[in-house]
């Protein structure tokens, strides 16, 4: 008999998978929020060790086809993994350059790079944004000029996460300055130790150094390190990546922060009363609402994908909603925790390991990175709601 009701639950396989993942993350991650780590050096070691454990399970690149070192995980499995990881602050699976190579790479490129990504052997940095090209990424200016069987790169990238640790960088360049901006871009890979590449760290407002500026000065890249065709790099890079885009990880993080605050208040925190007043209770209720709404709209995206449907505005909505919830949650926490909440993890008298001090500052960038809220709203309005373009 056909089901005539909606089902928000999980089947047996999904439940078993969830338990398996939960065991793994609890055993191997051990606490702390990967997004908040201020002690950069220690955080990096921990991340690498964890990624190697993930790789052993085949989970680092779980969405990849098996032939490339993946698990061909279903959308639901990917989403479950993302959610369970985020609930303990652990990092999720890898994306980006691997799938791009899978779709557009030559066999030689795939053989050289994919196994090492899947095994957590090589670390990649992404060279996309530039000081003058943020939201308008297609206006990028880093030049790549052909010289025999090489290209010579000159320019500057910014917000390059992890460039100081990376082995390789994948970078968008302009190969035809005369063409319309989207049609003059080529996509290259280069080892980070290529002469001419320099990395300058950027200090973010929560004290962490995750981002860098990356300078290219007469950097020679073999033509065989181009991914896809010349001047088709924009389309190569924006290939709809066939892995889950639910954003449930962000929603789970919102729920996790709320849980941490509630647990802390119940146990008793210096400077805070366990007896919350009316407005504080309302604030926590709103936070809970946002965590739940964020979770459900994320689930919707994953379900759509599992049905073979392509989400567009639904994924944008998840990103906007969950990043803004994160910021509101951090503000509510600080308002409740008062001056104690403003102390860093290593400070005397800090509460909850200074997590909300960190989160308050680090959450600012969340509505900016990976497609700003303003851009996402444009996408929602035009693609989702069919509103006329501005």
């Amino acid at each position: 008999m056909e089901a005539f009701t909606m089902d928000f639950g999980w089947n047996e396989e999904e439940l078993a998978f969830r338990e398996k993942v939960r065991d793994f993350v609890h055993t191997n991650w051990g606490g702390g929020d990967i997004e908040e780590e201020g002690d950069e050096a220690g955080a990096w070691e921990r991340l690498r060790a964890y990624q190697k454990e993930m790789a052993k399970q085949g989970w680092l690149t779980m969405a990849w086809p098996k032939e490339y070192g993946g698990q061909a995980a279903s959308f639901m499995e990917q989403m479950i993994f993302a959610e369970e990881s985020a609930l303990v602050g652990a990092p999720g699976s890898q994306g980006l350059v691997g799938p791009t190579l899978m779709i557009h790479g030559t066999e030689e490129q795939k053989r050289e790079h994919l196994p090492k990504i899947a095994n957590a052997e090589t670390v990649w940095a992404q060279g996309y944004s530039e000081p003058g090209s943020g939201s308008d990424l297609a206006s990028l200016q880093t030049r790549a000029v052909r010289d025999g069987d090489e290209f010579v790169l000159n320019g500057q990238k910014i917000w390059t996460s992890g460039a100081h640790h990376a082995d390789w960088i994948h970078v968008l360049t302009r190969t035809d300055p005369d063409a319309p901006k989207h049609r003059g871009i080529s996509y290259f890979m280069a080892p980070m130790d290529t002469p001419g590449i320099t990395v300058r760290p950027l200090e973010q407002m929560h004290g962490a150094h995750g981002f860098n500026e990356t300078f290219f000065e007469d950097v020679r890249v073999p033509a065989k390190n181009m991914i896809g065709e010349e001047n088709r790099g924009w389309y190569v890079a924006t290939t709809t990546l066939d892995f889950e885009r639910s954003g449930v990880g962000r929603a789970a993080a919102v729920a996790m922060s709320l849980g941490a605050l509630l647990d802390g208040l119940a146990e008793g925190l210096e400077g805070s009363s366990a007896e919350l007043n009316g407005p504080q209770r309302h604030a926590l209720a709103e936070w809970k609402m946002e965590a739940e709404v964020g979770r459900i709209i994320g689930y919707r995206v994953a379900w759509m994908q599992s049905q073979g449907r392509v989400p567009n505005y639904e994924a944008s909505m998840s990103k906007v909603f969950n990043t803004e919830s994160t910021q509101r949650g951090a503000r509510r926490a600080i308002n409740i925790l008062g001056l104690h909440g403003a102390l860093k993890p290593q400070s005397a008298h800090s509460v909850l390991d200074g997590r909300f001090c960190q989160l308050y500052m680090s959450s600012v960038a969340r509505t900016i990175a990976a497609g700003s809220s303003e851009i996402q709203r444009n996408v929602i309005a035009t693609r989702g709601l069919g509103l006329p373009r501005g």
Partner: protein
Amino acid sequence: MDLALTETQQLLKSSVEDFLARGVTREAIIEASTSPTRTTDPMWRTPAELGWLGMAVPERFGGSEASLTDIAVLFEALGHGPLPGPHFSSGVLSPLILREAATEDQQAEFLPRIATGDIVVTLALTEPEWDWGASAVQMRADRSGDEFVLNGTKLFVFDGAVADQLIVAVRSGDAPEAISLLMVPASAPGVSVRPLQGWNTSEAAVTFEGVRVPSSALIGGSNLEGAAWAPLERALLQATPVLCAYSVGGAQAVYDMSVQYSRERKQFGQPIGRFQFVQNHIVQLVNHLDGARWTTFEALWKLDAGRPNADVSVHLAKLTTAEGYVQATNYAHEVHAGVGVMHEYGLTLFTRTARSLYHALGGPRWHRKRLGELLAALPVEAEAAS
């Protein structure tokens, strides 16, 4: 009604702007923000030489005894830097407390040196079970002969890390407002000051272990033993809107930065200020800025002009300004996107300051409660007339 600055106020404002443009640049402030004391020499000595630290000090003690509005105009301009340092704690709050509570001799002992900047004085009131108001003070000072002995911890002492003297609030009895104030040298044996690491690098934890001070350290003498809360509250009422003005200056600065950035930054072939979202962010920002500014200056006017219900206006100004400054920085970040997140750009100085000041001199919860109590006690007609 006249909402313009007076000529004196204009001059004060210009001289601070000059000082910040030439003497202490934003780059210098960004650099100083990572050091524990955050007060490099020019940031303290020049204001002292220009008489800015003596504006709340009576003339007979070497100050200029300016109106609160004048002082606020100065502090608004300082907040535009945002100039770090104990200028407010030592140049405003402490002299106001001493004027309200201290004996003439005690004023003569401390106020001249406050005005010259030779000593830094700050208030130590909050304790680890953090709160505000008289009930927040639980630490006692025991009498031992002709001395007081202090044991306990004061937390979030603003500028505690650089203070020479601490005005320490202690409890002298069980009645809610049975508070005394003691002037304690930071160098006294048993006092240990530990800077707290947070967004505001000037806050400190101050621990007292068997600290002995003579009974002459009692501010106001024996008359004010257990009776210092009322004068302290009067001083706080006057000092709070000056701190609000400092916040208004910061909100003004991030507004200026946002407008400029929206004109200069181009994406998609045009200045981002042409996009409605960016415009909306700045409009929201200016709403918060203007709300903060005008509630603050109305409170100051009421205090200077001796109008009734100034306390209502002060609580209102603090609430509006605390929230307004934080929101202003939030919107400024939305306008600035990536570049605003980088510490070297300078916007985050304001973000951190705004957040740190949110709970200073009482958080919104406390001010809302006080405002509610005062409003409930007001006859309805009087509210409109004030």
